[in-house]
């Protein structure tokens, strides 16, 4: 049973239950109203309505699973940072479970804080930016399946969103505009510089990223995650496309804005960069969303290069996927804490002069591999 069937079953059962009452109610009413009741009930039971509701429920389940996942993820992030940096990490809130509740406590604290909008800020943009940022990041999660059975699909056969990978990459690229919006609307020099940096930085990493992803699409012959992962049943794409994998990881680090490339919020020179003026839960949302994006980045790398949910079958597919995503994230953390931040002009130089040629070379290799029929 895949997620679609599961949600369809729930929706069907719910609709049946409600309709049962509904028709019973309609029987007691005059004929004109009764007809209306019947029409509504029939609409509710129709295939179109059921599949739309099913997909909404699927999205809800996926987002809830993803957010719980993010809590785990933040915990791992903080513990791992602690261990790399030679301290314990969160410890006291939830002492028995290794400080797992610390993030909930932090979230609670952020929730009760006052929402402050700077007097001279552009209010609409200021309040809109976090919403778009969080929304676009959750969109990425919605399209990435955990396994063949656990992902957003549109029909009972388990066929997933046709161009899911493309959609995920596109959703990933929305964030820099949000950052620019937040930076500009805060009406602060630091945030403005941070926003501008984000826009400039995006140019440099987005193109190599897309080129490497294009090489994966070329090998897989599909934009669909399931097809891409299935193609890696024998050999992971990371092995023939090793250069592309490295380029992809570097670009991904720029995409999720962690330290070698976290120029928009370089806290040493720009205080907190584009998030300077945000406080309370809005800041908490940014913080959480950074974790969401890190997780999404790991998941993307897993699905595109590391064979997705394929692995020895003694562990469920979904867990394999999570393990791989977490491992990619661990590597991210390792690199993040061991390296200084680059400068904006150096970032552009790396993007255009180093990553772009490598990405093109990688595309060439992919073309050769494909035409030789090795994969």
């Amino acid at each position, binding site marked *: 049973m895949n997620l679609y069937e599961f949600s369809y079953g729930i929706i069907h059962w719910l609709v049946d239950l409600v309709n049962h009452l509904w028709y019973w109610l309609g029987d007691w009413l005059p004929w004109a109203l009764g007809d209306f009741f019947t029409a509504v009930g029939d609409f509710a039971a129709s295939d179109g309505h059921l599949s739309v509701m099913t997909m909404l429920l699927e999205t809800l389940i996926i987002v809830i699973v993803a957010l719980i996942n993010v809590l785990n993820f933040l915990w791992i992030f903080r513990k791992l940072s602690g261990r790399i940096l*030679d301290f314990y990490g969160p410890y006291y809130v939830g002492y028995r479970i290794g400080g797992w509740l610390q993030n909930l406590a932090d979230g609670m604290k952020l929730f009760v804080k006052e929402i402050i909008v700077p007097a001279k800020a552009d209010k609409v943009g200021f309040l809109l930016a976090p919403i778009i940022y969080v929304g676009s990041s959750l969109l990425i999660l919605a399209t990435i399946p955990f396994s063949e059975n656990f992902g957003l699909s549109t029909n009972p056969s388990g066929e997933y969103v046709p161009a899911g990978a493309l959609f995920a990459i596109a959703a990933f690229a929305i964030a820099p505009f949000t950052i620019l919006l937040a930076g500009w609307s805060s009406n602060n020099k630091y945030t403005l*510089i941070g926003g501008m940096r984000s826009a400039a930085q995006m140019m440099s990493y987005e193109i190599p990223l897309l080129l490497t992803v294009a090489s994966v699409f070329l090998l897989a012959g599909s934009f669909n995650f399931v097809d891409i992962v299935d193609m890696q049943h024998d050999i992971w794409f990371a092995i023939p496309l090793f250069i592309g994998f490295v380029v992809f990881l570097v670009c991904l680090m720029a995409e999720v804005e962690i330290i070698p490339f976290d*120029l928009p919020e*370089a806290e*040493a*020179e720009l205080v907190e960069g584009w998030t300077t003026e945000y406080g309370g839960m809005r800041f908490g949302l940014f913080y959480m969303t950074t974790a969401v994006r890190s997780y999404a980045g790991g998941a993307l790398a897993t699905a595109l290069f590391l064979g997705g949910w394929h692995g020895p079958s003694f562990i469920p597919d979904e867990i394999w996927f999570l393990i791989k995503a977490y491992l990619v994230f661990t590597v991210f953390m390792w690199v993040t*804490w061991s390296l*200084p*931040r680059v*400068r904006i002009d150096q970032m552009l130089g790396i993007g255009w002069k180093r990553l772009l040629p490598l990405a093109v070379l990688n595309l060439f290799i992919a073309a050769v591999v494909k035409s030789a029929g090795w994969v």
Partner: protein
Amino acid sequence: MAEMWVNMGPQHPMTHGLWNLRVKVDGETIVDAEPEVGYLHRGIEKLCENRTYPQIIPIADRLCYGSSMTWSHLYCMTVEDLTGLEVPERAEYIRVVAIEMQRIASHLMWLAAYAGDLGLSVGFTYTMRDREVFVDLFQALTGGRLTYNFPRIGGVAHDLPPDFDRDAIRAVDYMEKRLREYEDLFDRSKIFMMRNEGIGILRKEDAMNLGVTGPSLRASGVSYDIRKDAPYSVYPEMDFEVATHKDCDCYARYKVRMVEMWQSCRIIRQAIAEMPKGKWRVVAPRTAPEGTGLGRVEDPRGEGMMYVVGDGTDRPYRLKVRSPIFVTVSAAPKILVGYKLADVVAIMGGLDMCIGETDR
């Protein structure tokens, strides 16, 4: 983007204290800069005029939170110069061990802040972790962790605690191992070198003219170290080299400090080995004669200097403190102009700011 003034400070992660650097940026490029200090002015020079001579030692400690031992030592040296007091030799050796430990601790704190500025988190935590070794040593030696109040006019407050020799040599061994690790973490990192090489060029002539002293001066190629060239205490008997570098950039300033840490390890070894027996303190006269006293030391941040005027009472008539960073920070516009906004943290971090002594 048009040109605009950006205030970096007084509350800013770059400043390491309370001061304000106003930079005028054109896009990301700096076209003008102007440091503003004075946010932490505590009037220490005026305070000292109303304290007796021993009471000033804790205040001199608080001149610089990063290297308090150097400043209280400098104060004691100055008053000894004023009163003409001879310090026992053992006290001088203990002082040298303490100062060199302080130099390592101060440089490690600088390195931590510098790494933190550049975004290198492991650099921050590892250096602070290793500084802790020396802070623990200080704790055993003096009883304090940050402000030691250890030197006294006419010696030091306590003798060495038992097993201090062994612990100090162990700490130095540990430090030398760690310095190699730092070389891997910093020098061998491409990104660190990208952020440092060729950034913040301060030419030799400018450095001398603007009064830049200490590691920043030696990084500009001037081989001048007060420990060597105007020796005080028992430094003439120590065998060490003056670290200089010809590159004049941020990397040179980083490298000079790293080499200084190696040399400090050497000095500590020698001083521990040659530590004489005997008294560690003599009775200091309560009053100082009329006249002036001058003390000059090589602070971890540059040339520390005190000028004291005595008037025959038990309180100094006037105490003037020369803060190395107060002069160095006025050279900031010279170094900053032409570089990117992100280089401000590398350049100002490389000068090792300490606002406690700057504002006094």
